[in-house]
């Protein structure tokens, strides 16, 4: 139920109900996603999507950091 999938924002538009809707690319599958809770959303951002809503932007630097942490485990 708490499944959330990362996808890349490819366009952003407002609808008649003032909701901000983005088209998000999930590895080739394009879906409309509500991005009302991501005030600084822009094209190219990666978002985590759950039941049609973006929960948060994904932080690329932090994503990379975790991989470095794993790589450096042996040395610590």
């Amino acid at each position, binding site marked *: 139920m*708490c499944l*959330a999938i990362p996808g890349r924002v490819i366009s952003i538009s407002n609808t008649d109900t003032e909701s901000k809707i983005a088209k998000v690319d*999930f590895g080739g599958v394009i879906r409309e996603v*509500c991005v*009302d809770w991501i005030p600084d959303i822009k094209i190219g951002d*990666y978002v985590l999507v759950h039941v049609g*809503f973006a*929960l*948060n932007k994904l932080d*690329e630097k932090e994503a990379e950091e975790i991989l470095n942490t794993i790589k450096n485990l042996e040395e610590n």
Partner: protein
Amino acid sequence: MKFIDEYRNADDSKRIVDKIKNILRHNWYIMEICGGQTHTILKYRLEEILPEKITLLHGPGCPVCVTSVEFIDKAIQLSFHKDVILTSYGDMLRVPGTKYSLLYSKSIGANVKTIYSPIDALKLAKDYPDKKIIFFAIGFETTAPATASSIIQARKMGLKNFFVLCAHVLVPPAIEILLKSQLTKIDGIIAAGHVCTVMGFKEYIPIAKKYKVPIVVTGFEPNDLLLGIFMTVKQLEEGRYDVENQYKRAVREEGNMSAKKIMFDVFEVVDRKWRGIGFINNSGLKIKKEFEDMDAEKVFSLNTQIDEIDTECIAGLILQGIKKPVDCLNFARKCTPENPLGAPMVSSEGSCNAYYKFGSVKINN
């Protein structure tokens, strides 16, 4: 796919497991709260590559499993009301109520539709103005803001035919119940990353201190989980009880302020009954008075009397981590995903379903 594949690298998995073995001195019982994480653990056989001193317990983090029978019975009743289209997420349709499931009610004539998002229910309300669209809303803090948003949107759109049967529940009160319980030994907790994406993790800090358990907010890919387990074990071996965040790429300490705001604009906190566990104080969300014209429980007449269920299902013990699915006499015999005796076998987040689907584990009975 970006942000997924990178965290499934087998060499990295081995690196983390070796490090865990390196620092491990004692036996530890670690509970992952979220059913999505349980499925990752089973699917990637993580229990098999971890040292025997670590026991993973599977927690109550499956909203479909913990939604009370009364709610399912109410949804079934509503689905037979005149002009109603009852909508919910797929898994919810297959869970048995007192007598049968929503899927069965559909098969005997009720108007029940599976939806992917509450936005789909709003679209139905707009497209079918002569029908009453009821959204049976279940889920934790991850899902509740989406329901709240659909209620706000319905108000903005002037829809008079959109209603919500609200069964949302909150995670931290359930964690506290498990930690208070004398039945479950829990040394450390893997907190549900996506719940914390919305809520942040400040509310877990007093829990970690009070019950002396490390809590590590963790993601959903196999290496996220292994790293979350490593961070938990490290704290346990060092005698620390902190809240740490393994899932920094998605979770900020304060969570998502906009999602939290909309959630508490629409809902208030109430006591709620959890299937298999019982009433938990301040663990549910109810629609506030100013939106009660959309609250299905207020608008429609419902008979809430239910018969006591006589079931052989031990879901309550499984959801509390007291027993594992393979400890159940009916597991994979009388109880299968096609013929479930209880919710954890139905739901794609239920631990019985995970053990059945990825079953590498021998049946204990």
